[in-house]
C-alpha cells in the first residue's frame, strides 16, 4: 500500500508515525504512573473531589518516581567507578 506513495509523502508519513509512536509511549507512561500513584496517594473511599493532600501527592509522585530512577542510575555509576578505582 505504502509503495504507491511518492517519496515526499512517504517521508511525511514516516514523520507522522514517529510522532504518533512518541505520543503512544507518553500515554503508556502516564497509564503506568497513574496506576502506581493512585495506589500510593488515594487511600480512602473516593469522594466528589480530591483533598489538597491527595492532589499534591499525585503531582509529587511522578516527580519523585523520576528522581528515584535518576538517583539509582547515579548510585550504580558511582559504585562502578569505585570498583574500577
Amino acid at each position: 500500500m505504502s509503495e504507491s506513495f511518492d517519496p515526499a509523502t512517504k517521508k511525511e508519513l514516516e514523520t507522522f508515525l514517529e510522532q504518533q509512536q512518541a505520543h503512544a509511549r507518553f500515554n503508556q507512561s502516564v497509564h503506568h504512573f497513574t496506576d502506581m500513584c493512585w495506589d500510593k496517594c488515594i487511600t480512602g473511599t473516593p469522594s466528589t473531589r480530591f483533598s489538597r493532600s491527595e492532589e499534591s501527592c499525585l503531582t509529587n509522585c511522578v516527580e519523585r518516581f523520576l528522581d528515584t530512577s535518576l538517583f539509582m542510575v547515579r548510585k550504580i555509576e558511582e559504585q562502578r567507578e569505585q570498583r574500577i578505582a
Partner: protein
Amino acid sequence: MSDFLKNPLSSGSSADATARKEALMNQVRSELALTNAQELINKMNEKCFLKCVTKPSTSLSSSEETCLTRCMERYMQAFDIISKSYTARLSRESLEPRL
C-alpha cells in the same frame, strides 16, 4: 498536457494520494485513541472494583454504584493531573542541561 495523456498505470491523481494519506493518518489516530481509551477503562475498572466493591454480593448496591461513579471521575482526574505533571517535568528537563 492533459490528464488523460498520463500513463494510466501510475494512476491516482495527487488529490487521490492526499486522500489516501489522510485516510491512513486518521486510521492510525483513531486506533491509538481506541487503545488509549481501552487501557484507561481497564485500569479504572480494576482500581474502582478494588476500592468500591469490597464484598461482592448478588448485585451492586446503590452505595457501591455511587462509589464507582466518584471513583471513575477521580481516576480520570488523576490521569489528567499526572499527565500535566509529567509534561511539565519533560519540558523542564529538555530546557535545563543535565547536571
